[in-house]
Each structure stands twice: as structure tokens, then as C-alpha cells.
């Protein structure tokens, strides 16, 4: 009986199939998409443009080029781990070439940002959206000139036909282009608002303009920068305009880490421009700030990687809040907070590390009976007993334990204390509009709030050190060192003075192969 049933089923199936296959096919299109009627809006494209900055900025790509190439950060090779064909060693010791993976990945990310921002302009944006997109494009072009010495741009037909090689602006033209763009959009951008610092504002554009004027002399001649007094005065004027809005204040004592906390969009009094990270909405891997430095046995386990160097750490005094504290914040759901262990959870991790569940000393993974003590001593290759423990680990973005998905810390691009330090620097470099006494008071205000004593006078050396302390691991160290003429000098794990060609990175070979307008930088 059963087999007959099966036979009938097969038979009917066959008949149905043959019936269907005899039907004449009438194609009928039920939807259509024509050029110009796409439902992609400027809103979505603008968010895409903002989001394209997440990867290069958030402790990857651009960050690696700006920090690991300096005395502030190192990615030591730990046994077989973190070797990655020596790309991190090459960047730290100034031996990179055009094939180094970070050359290409950073170039592509920033180039994509330029394209995505330009693309917004073609889809009927509002005046404000247009201005925001032009700000993002200017920021990415500024980074390109800083890193590679050139800024590529697509205009007109080249936006639709990718076979047309993009135009390449040299440093001088690029700077003029950025200054013109920023001056045109400032009036249209919204006023700065600390709780929506992730939206490009007038103050964000002013800060970028300050950075352009401050670095202009360096970008035009990296070996012997000339600082034009008029440019420096512009920096001071812009800083005063930002202060004049009354929107920002230097964080109160004990509040330095508010600027990087999971709820920094609410709490920070300094953030001028940030990259948005919000669980359930959008964002990127801001937890790389933890993963790149944390040991496997910390909570949560990290990748046991990057560190700083002891000479950099020694720039901080014992009372300096920035060096590390126990930071009490709502997103901390560990026993470290609830049971009152209050072990240090932000800043530089050094010495014995503790289990935040039990308050017991943490052990290494191998051998498991060795205490996990982060040491000052670290070499660019470590192994054996020091493999897991070498190096002091900096961490500014308090870990967001309350969110199992996207971490909510917004990444800080521009901050008010940076504005004040740039204002002070512009005065030292011959700018007018503020007196030496005024800017000394500004720097001392920052120092006082961070818990260290005041300076009697300012000079380029103590100002550079103050920038090192205030802005550590925020992605500006290389730019600062080049501007202060110290980038090529030897530091701990980079013996010897580097060749001046390393003042600018190599244009990635993959891009030279596809854009005939690109010329390799001298020496590569």
C-alpha cells in the first residue's frame, strides 16, 4: 500500500513538472530602479561617511602609524605572536617600505572616507548635511597630507567612472583646499554641543583649522619647518573663538577619564569631535583599546599585545591623575566596584595585576604559577619568562562591562585641552593675540586639574611633554614629534637617528599600480 502511494506521488509530481515546463514564460518586472530615482538618501550616506573613520581612528591603521612609530607605543613581537611579518617592528623602528600592510590599509580607509563624504554631496543633502560631509572630507585629506604628503581627490566624471585616475593634490594645494573648504562651511555647521560631539560642529571645524595652520609649515618642509606668525595668530584666534562659546571647560580633578568613559557623550566637558559608538545603533571596535593591551587572564581576556616604553611612562608624576586611577563609572559591573576592591582600572597598568572578581593576584597563562606583573623593561622581541609580562599597558577608555555588544565609548578625535595646548604652542611660535602669561595660566589650569604642580614658564620642551601626558595614545604623537623636530631621534627600542625620508610614509605600492598620478615619495 505504502509503495503504491509513493508511486502516485512521484507520478503526479512528474505530470505537474511537465505541465509547468510547457508554460510560456512572460517576464514581468514588478520593480524598477532608474538612475536618479534611487531611494538612497543623504542621511544614510552621511552616516556611512562618518562611520568610515571608525577603523582608521580606533586604535588601528591611522592610529598605528601615528603612535607605534613613536616612543609612546610599541607592539612587541611576543614569541611567535604579533610577528605579522615584522610590520609592527618596521613601523616602530622606522624601517617600513611601500609594501607594509598599514600603508595600504590606512590609505584605503582614508581614501574611502574622502569618497563617501563627496558622495553625500550628490544626493540632495540639506545645507547642514553638505557642510558636515565637507568637514569629514577635509579631515581625511588633512590626515592623508600628514601621513603621505599628498591628498587624492575624485571630482566630476571620475566619481562615476572609476577607470579615471583620481587627481592628486600636493601638500601646498591640499592645505589651501582644506582651508578654503573649512572657511566656507563654518557658518553653516551647527554650534558645538558636548552631548552631540559626534556631529561635526563649528568648533570641530575650528579645531581642524587650528591643526592645519599649526602644522602647515611642517607639511611644507618636514625637515626644517618654518612657522608663519600669521598662521600662528590664526591658531590663537580660533582657540579664543572656541573658548568664547563657553561650551567647554577643562575636566575637573578626578574627571579626566570622563572624556573616554562609556557615557562620555553625556559626561565629558572637553570633547569637541568624537566618533559615535552606540550599542544597537552604530559604531566600531572601540574595545580594541582594551584588547590590544590586556593580558589573556584579565577580565575580559585580551590579546596580550601593545605597551608603552618606560621613558614615556616616566614623564608622569605619582600624583598625576592621567597616569592611572580607580575610576568609578556606571558601566563597571565588576566586583572591583561593587565589593569595593577599587583596583586601578584606567591609565597605565604596571606591576602586579589583580583579579577583579576575587581581588587575588592574577597569574600568567604559561607558566600558570608565575604572577602577572607588567614590567617596565620591554624589548621589541620578547620570549620565555617575559613573553606575557613585558611592558606597561596604557588604557584610557574605561571598559564597557554593561554592554555585551557594541561598546558605547565614543572615540575622541578633538578635545578642548588639545585646543588650549595648541593655543599655547602658537604663542611660543610667534603668534599674537594671547600673551605668554595668559597661555601659561591655561596650561597650569590643565596641570592643576590633573593633580600636578604649576610651571613657572613655558618653552617648547615642557610644552611637548605636557602634550605627551595629556594626549597619550590619542593618535597625535607622531604629528607632534615631527612638528617639534624630534621624530627622527633615537628612542629606547629604536637605536640611531632615522633617515629623513621617514618623516613621511611611503605611498602604498598597490595604489601606485592603479593611479598614474601618484608618485612615490622620495627615498622609497
Amino acid at each position, binding site marked *: 500500500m505504502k509503495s503504491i502511494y509513493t508511486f502516485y506521488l512521484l507520478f503526479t509530481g512528474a505530470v505537474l513538472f511537465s505541465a509547468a515546463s510547457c508554460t510560456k514564460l512572460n517576464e514581468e518586472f514588478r520593480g524598477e530602479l532608474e538612475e536618479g530615482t534611487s531611494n538612497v538618501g543623504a542621511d544614510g550616506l552621511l552616516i556611512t561617511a562618518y562611520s568610515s573613520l571608525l577603523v582608521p581612528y580606533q586604535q588601528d591603521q591611522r592610529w598605528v602609524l601615528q603612535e607605534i612609530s613613536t616612543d609612546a607605543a610599541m607592539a612587541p*613581537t611576543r*614569541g*611567535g*605572536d*604579533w*610577528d*605579522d*611579518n*615584522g*610590520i609592527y*617592528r*618596521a613601523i616602530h623602528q622606522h*624601517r*617600513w*617600505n611601500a*609594501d*607594509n*600592510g598599514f600603508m595600504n*590599509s590606512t*590609505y*584605503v580607509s*582614508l*581614501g*574611502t*572616507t*574622502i*569618497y*563617501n563624504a*563627496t558622495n553625500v554631496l550628490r544626493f540632495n543633502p540639506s545645507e547642514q548635511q553638505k557642510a558636515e560631509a565637507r568637514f569629514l572630507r577635509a579631515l581625511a585629506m588633512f590626515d592623508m597630507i600628514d601621513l603621505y604628503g599628498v591628498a*587624492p*581627490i*575624485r571630482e566630476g566624471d571620475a566619481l562615476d567612472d*572609476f*577607470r579615471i*585616475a*583620481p587627481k592628486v593634490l600636493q601638500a601646498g594645494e591640499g592645505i589651501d583646499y582644506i582651508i578654503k573648504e573649512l572657511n566656507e562651511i563654518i557658518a553653516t555647521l551647527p554650534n558645538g554641543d558636548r552631548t552631540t560631539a559626534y556631529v561635526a560642529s563649528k568648533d570641530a571645524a575650528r579645531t581642524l583649522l587650528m591643526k592645519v595652520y599649526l602644522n602647515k609649515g611642517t607639511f611644507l618642509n618636514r625637515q626644517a619647518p618654518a612657522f608663519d606668525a600669521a598662521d600662528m595668530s590664526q591658531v590663537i584666534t580660533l582657540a579664543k573663538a572656541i573658548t568664547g562659546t563657553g561650551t567647554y571647560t577643562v575636566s575637573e580633578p578626578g574627571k579626566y577619564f570622563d572624556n573616554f568613559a562609556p557615557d562620555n557623550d553625556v559626561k565629558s566637558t572637553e570633547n569637541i569631535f568624537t566618533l559615535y559608538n552606540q550599542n544597537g545603533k552604530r559604531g566600531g571596535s572601540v574595545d580594541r583599546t582594551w584588547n590590544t593591551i590586556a593580558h589573556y587572564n584579565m577580565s575580559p581576556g585580551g590579546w596580550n599585545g601593545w605597551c608603552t616604553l618606560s621613558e614615556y611612562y616616566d614623564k608622569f608624576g605619582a600624583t598625576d591623575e592621567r597616569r592611572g586611577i580607580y575610576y568609578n563609572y556606571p558601566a563597571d559591573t565588576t566586583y572591583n566596584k561593587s565589593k569595593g576592591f577599587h583596583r586601578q582600572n584606567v591609565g597605565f597598568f604596571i606591576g602586579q595585576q589583580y583579579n577583579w572578581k576575587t581581588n587575588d593576584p592574577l597569574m600568567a597563562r*604559561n607558566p600558570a604559577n608565575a604572577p602577572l606583573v607588567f614590567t617596565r623593561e620591554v624589548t621589541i*622581541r*620578547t*620570549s*620565555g619568562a617575559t*613573553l606575557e609580562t613585558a611592558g606597561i599597558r596604557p588604557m584610557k577608555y574605561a571598559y564597557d562591562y554593561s554592554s555585551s555588544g557594541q561598546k558605547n565609548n565614543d572615540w575622541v578625535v578633538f578635545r578642548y585641552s588639545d585646543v588650549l595646548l595648541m593655543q599655547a604652542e602658537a604663542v611660543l611660535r610667534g603668534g599674537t593675540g594671547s600673551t605668554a602669561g595668559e597661555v601659561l595660566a591655561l596650561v597650569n589650569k590643565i596641570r592643576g586639574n590633573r593633580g600636578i604642580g604649576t610651571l613657572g614658564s613655558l618653552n617648547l620642551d615642557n610644552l611637548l611633554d605636557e602634550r605627551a601626558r595629556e594626549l597619550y595614545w590619542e593618535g597625535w604623537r607622531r604629528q607632534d614629534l615631527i612638528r617639534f623636530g624630534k621624530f627622527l631621534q633615537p628612542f629606547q627600542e629604536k637605536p640611531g637617528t632615522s633617515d629623513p625620508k621617514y618623516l613621511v610614509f611611503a605611498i602604498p*605600492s*598597490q*595604489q*601606485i*599600480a*592603479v*593611479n*598614474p598620478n601618484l608618485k612615490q615619495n622620495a627615498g622609497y
Partner: protein
Amino acid sequence: MFEQTLAQPAPAGRIWVNLDGEIVNKGVEISLTGNIIRKNGWNWDLTGNATFLKNSVSGLVGYYETGALRGQGFSGVLGQRMVNGQPLNVWYLAEYAGIDPNTGMSMYRGLDGSISSNNDPSVNKFYAASPNPTTLLGISTNLSYKKFTFGANMNGAMGHYLFNNTAATSLGISNLSTRNIGTSFFNTSVKESTSNSASPSTRYLEKGNYLKLANLTLSYKVGDIGNTLKNFNISLTGQNLFILTKYTGFDPEVNTDGSTNGIPSLGIEYLPYPPAKTILLGINFSL
């Protein structure tokens, strides 16, 4: 036609272009078939073919990289190039020059010709060898005697180099404290340091020469059994029965995909599932 990376600024993507450039394959192909015996119920055929090939790229502007290598400490590492004057997918790697007896670290040849463990493998790279075989071999034979038939197929390739990525990142000396290591890293005459990282180099490049018995069949034609079973035939087939090679990895025929930016790779072995050895017993008849 070539799928080219877009010139930035652009969306992340690729575009088909008519790329200037040529790939020249030069070589000889020989095929011989012989009927060796045909008498007294014996029949023996033998066919052999051999292809000798040399391939080279020319007329490209710049070069393209591919051949993604993998494993801990190999993030973002590419090992092959398409570049003028070299065979397609030529290996572009640091040149390994043994272990430094004093430090236990790998030594590499520098661009200046020096041999030292201070030469960083990431910036001292050379065109090493080709992953393309220069010789391809095929042998097949058929022997029958009365109701017995015997058939065998062998294939082989020679003159190409494979990257044993499995040995480089899964069996290396730095695993010593936590995992097993490969025999080639054990009890070596010069002691290798456990902190010696496995940089991609010619150390893991091996000759891929092989000759493989791809399949072998023995069958016996019984014929009709009674009035119900007609054309009764029994056969025994073996596949991948043996391979002659000095390659130390799983199988020289595997090709783990390491294509990058749409450019295919060739000759990488990384934790593959090796081809199975199969034995089949077949019975064939009609009613």
C-alpha cells in the same frame, strides 16, 4: 581582463579592466600511446603524456600582490606577486639562511647580501621560486586477459614550490610550551630559540614534485549467471593509493585558497583536509 583594486578615493571594491600585460606560456607537450601486447587473450595499452611549461608575465604597470598566508603571527601577510619578468604568482619572500648558532634566531639574507639574524624578513624579500609546475606527467595503462581487466592512472607534477604554511604557523618551535611541534623542529643540530618567530620565508618553501597513483581498477567479467543475472561484473577500485614525494606536508596536490583582492593564489598548504584514500568494491549486473 583583470579585476583591479579601485584607485582611492573610491568605495572599497574592484573593477574589471582590460589590463595591459601578457602571460606567456612556452613549452612542449608530448603524448605517446602504445599497444604493447595483443595476443592469446592478452591486451596491454600504455599511454604517457608529458607537458613541459615555462610561464612568465610581462608588460604590467607596477605589480600586484596576492597569496595570503595564515596563522598566528601571520596577519595580513602576502607571499606572492604578479610582476614583470617572473612567473605568474612568483613567491616573494625573505631568504632563509639557517639558524644563528649563537642566538638561536633565524638568519636571513639582506638586500645588501649580508647574512644575519638582524636582517628583518619583512623588508629583505626576494623573488624566490615559482609555484607553477614546469613538468606535468600523466601515465595510464590498461591490461586485460580474458575476463580480467586491470587499469591504472598516475599523474604527477614537477618543478614547483609549495609554501608549507601548516609547518610555519602550527608546528613551529614557539608552540613548544603549549602544543606539539613538528619533527623537523625537534632535536636539530643547531638549537633554535623558542622566541624565534616564524616569519614567512623560503624556510617553509618546499619542492612539490610528486607522482601519484590516482586510481587503480581490477575487474572480472563473470558474464551471465543463470537466466536472471546478466553481464555480471565485479570490480575493485582504489583511489589515491600511494604518492611518491619528498614534500613533508599533507599532500602536494592541495591548494589552500589565499586569493587577495580577487587575484588567485597558488601552492599554499594550510591545514587542509587531505584527499582521502578510497577503496571501492563494485558489483554490476542487469536483470
